[in-house]
Structure formats: C-alpha cells, structure tokens
C-alpha cells in the first residue's frame, strides 16, 4: 500500500512551491504568509511522521521511570497523596505493559510488509513458471482470497476520494482494521 503520507506531503509541497505560491497575489500579504505557513507545517509533518511513534514510546518510557521514582519519593503523605499514588501505580502498570507490547516501530512493520510482498510474489511467479497445474490452481485461489481482503482495505483507505461507483459496498476502514 503506497498511498502513504510521506509521498503525499512531498507532492503537495512540490505543487505549492512550483505552481501555487508563484501564483499567489504578491500584494496579498496574508495569503502569501499563510501559503508559506502551510508549506512549513507540511514540511514539519513530513519530518515528524516517521518519528511520531518512537517519540511517543520514548516519552512513555521516561514517564514510566519517572512514575516509579515518584512512587518511591512521594512519601506516605495524606489521604490525597496516597490516593494519587495508588492511581499512579495502576496507570503506570498499564503503561509498562503497553510499552512491552510496542516493541516494533511502524517503519519495521512497513519493511516487513514489503519483504513479505516480495517473497510471496516471487513464489507466485515461480510456481507459474515451473510448477504443476494443480499447484498453480491452489496458488491462484489463495492469492485471490488474500488480495480480496487486502484490496477491500486499500479501497476503504481512500474512500473519500470518490472513486467507488457504489461506496456503500465498502465497509468503513475503522471497522475493517478491527
């Protein structure tokens, strides 16, 4: 699936730089400024998006360590402090468990997807080159079934673009992703 924000942002920035900005009225200072701000924010997004997940995990790890320290140093205090510490213990435990599950970064998942696409694609081509008819039939059926599910998600991913003649036949992406 290649309709990803990095390519989209790159294309938008090129259109803004090459076509839109030169056409903005130089006397309309507000429009000039806001066009440049749009481009600046898009450039910022392009840099931040690949790092967003790592940034959040990094912060969560720091907060987990900090919460452990807080539990250690906050003392017994009064009722309010004890209640807050109890609440923090519960929240910190949930955060630690979550952090434990978030071991792989999105970019690693993306790379694994690419590798799996290539490896499975190679099997398809090979079977149709030197496999027997029965194996080809089985591979065809399996590929069509897997692709049906994948393509449904790819179509739902871009449903707001308006390409589908019958958009109601495509479930919402939120539902498909579980």
């Amino acid at each position, binding site marked *: 699936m290649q309709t990803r924000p990095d*390519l989209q942002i790159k294309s938008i920035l090129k259109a803004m730089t*090459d076509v839109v900005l030169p056409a903005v009225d130089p006397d309309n200072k507000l429009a000039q400024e806001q066009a440049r701000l749009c481009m600046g924010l898009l450039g910022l997004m392009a840099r931040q998006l690949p790092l967003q997940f790592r940034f959040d995990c990094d912060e969560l790890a720091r907060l987990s360590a900090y919460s452990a320290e807080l539990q250690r140093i906050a003392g017994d205090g009064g009722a309010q402090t004890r209640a807050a510490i109890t609440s923090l213990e519960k929240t910190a435990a949930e955060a630690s468990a979550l952090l434990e599950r978030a071991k792989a970064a999105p970019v690693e998942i993306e790379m694994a997807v690419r590798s799996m*696409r*290539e490896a499975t694609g190679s099997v*398809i081509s090979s079977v149709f080159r030197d496999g027997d008819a029965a194996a080809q039939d089985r591979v*065809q059926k399996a590929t069509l079934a897997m692709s049906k599910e994948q393509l449904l998600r790819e179509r739902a991913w871009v449903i707001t673009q*308006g*390409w589908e003649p019958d958009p109601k036949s495509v479930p919402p992406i939120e539902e498909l992703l579980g």
Partner: protein
Amino acid sequence: MRGIDKDRPSPEWIAELRKRFPVEREIDRVLTRKMQRRSGPPYSPVPLEKLVEGTTSLLRACNIGTFDIAQPRWLSGGASKLQMAFTLKWDRPGAGRAETPMVLRMEPAESIVETSRLREFQLIRAFEGTVPVPPVYWCDAEGEHLPYPALVYGFAEGVAKPTAAQAGVSGLGTHLPPELRARLAPQFVDYLARIHTFDYRKADLSAFDVPAADSTQCAEWGVNWWERVFEEDGDEDVPLMRLGAAWLRSHLPVLDKPSVVHADYRLGNFLFTEHDARISAWLDWELGRVGDRHQDIAWTTSRAFGHLAEDGKTFLTCGLMPENQFIEAYEKASGLCIDPKVVHWYKVYNDYMMGTLLYATSYRIAHGGKTHQDVLITWLMGIGGMLLEEMRTLIEEAP
C-alpha cells in the same frame, strides 16, 4: 526488487529487462530512453517563455515562413503531459495569412505513461478525415527544440464534459444527463467502429510494428510491455500483479484480425460541441497500437469510466449506455464480431496495465519529482485498489 536501485538503473539491468520483455521497436526505444534518463534531475517548472522559444525553434526548422506566436498560456487537463495554448500568426498553406489557435503538448521529465510522440503524431495524421481529430501539425519527437519531446496540435473546439457537470480529474467521474448521452452514444459507437475497420496498411505508421494474425504475438507484446514497466518502476511488490501477469501469459488469446486500437477510448477523451451534441475531436492517442479490437471494447467497459444510471442499478459503459447495448451496436456498426472470452482477457490486461501505472509508475515518478503535477499523480494512485479488485474478480470469474 531489493538490491536494484531503480532511481539510478544500471545499463546491465536495463539491458536485462529489454531482453526479458521484447516489445515493439518504438516502445522499446521509449522505455529504454526513460530508464537511461531516470537518474537525471527532477522536473523543474518550465516558464512559458522557454516553451515559446522552443516552439519558435521547431517551427523555424519546419520552414513555415514568417510567423508569430501570440497569447501563450497554460492549459490544464490530462494527467500525463504539459499543455500550452497559443495563437499562431502565419501563412497557412492554401489559406494565406491566418491566426490559428494551437496547443503545444509536451512530456515532463517522466510521465505517468511513457509513450512516443512520433506514434501519436502518425496515428492522428492517419485518422484525419476518418474520425474527428484535432489537426496535428508538427512533432519534436526527441526534444531537439523543446526541453522534452512535444507535438503541436490545432485547437479543437468543444468540451470534454458538460459545462455544468461535475467531474473528477482527467474526466473521470463525469455524469452525463440522459438526453445528452442519448445523442452522444451512437457517435461514440460509430467512431470506434471506424477506427477498428480503418486500413492501417495505407497509412504512414512506420513507428508501429504489426503483430502477426492467427498468433498470440499481439497479446504477448502487450503483457511484455506492462510487465516490463512494472519491473522498471515498481517500488513495493504486489502479489496480485504477479498473479495477473502469470494468468495473462497462461491464457494468451489469438489475434484474428489486426486493427488500430485507440487504447484510451472513453468519456473524457473526446470533445463535443454543446449546442448540437456533436463529437468534434478524439484525443489522447498516445497509447494507440496496431492490435486487437477487443482491447478497446474491454477498456470502454471498465468500471472506472462509467457510472450507475438514475435507477441506481444499471451500470452505464462510459456513462453512455449499458454494456450489452454497446456491444450490440458496435458489432452492427463495424461488421466485426466480439468474442466475450477475448474481451474478458483484455479486461484483465487493461486492469493489469492500469495497476502498473497506478501502483508502479505513479509512485516512481512522484517519488522522483519527475512531473509538472506530482500532486495529481499522487491523487490518482487512490484509484488503483478499485481497479485491481476488478482484475481480481475477473480472474476469479474467468470463463
């Protein structure tokens, strides 16, 4: 695909692809040129003045006498080429001093579909007087005068969609009112029949190779063309595209009778005059070839180019008429029969080609900043899933 730098392809890899995927000579030349130039700079905006300068150089080389290029301006429309409108003040042969509206159509550094300006030029010239086409005047096939290869057309009157209609880019998603489609549909069928019954042997089509009749060469050249492009341009592999290529190769149809194929015959690619609903020009011949008429029949019936009628149930081919009516009218107008099994194969073929352009080429050229409208190319990538689902279903339901 790992291990190959497709943004800087090596001569060895280019040679390997040429050997693996034999295609028509001119197609081979254009694809090879694309790969040899890929590591060059991205597209950078060309000022109108530079286009005027290049057009002036081209027209001087064509010895058209004294002339003046007036009112140059940008035109939008189309996803693949840059277009500049202008008025040529010149001594028009046989007409004396004239002011002729014209359009310069030029490639960007890389296009969503890499094609030959020479083929486009020859094909349009060949069809003058057979179907309405914009007059085509001059060709800079190798970009000797302009920054990239280009054609100069006469300006054709008409609109690609009703002035009041809503449509997406490239005319996709255009909805025609019933009274208009009733008038356009018969012309739409008739012109397709004329193209397919045209005697290509009498025309100068030297940039085309003619596939052998009673063989699978035509289909094989086609699959080689698009599988080669997928290999050249693709970034992320697509298992269904692998299956698509394998399925096409194991079901190659035999060509009964070579015909000229427009290859992009659809709503959005013709102009019509609104006051009399007359088709005034057929555009976008760049993918045309001498091939199998079933390719065009399959193309016009793609889900991407039509929509549901007012009843919400009947799918209209190119937004004009139901598919069965379209086929029936075509057979009557052309005297040629249509084999549903071959149409089915070409539907898979067309979707495979579109899958290649949308999943492979679009990514490659937008990623490399190679066009004047990468943002449009990126937008169009969104249609790929729907077209591949069509291909998937077609393979599943193949007769």
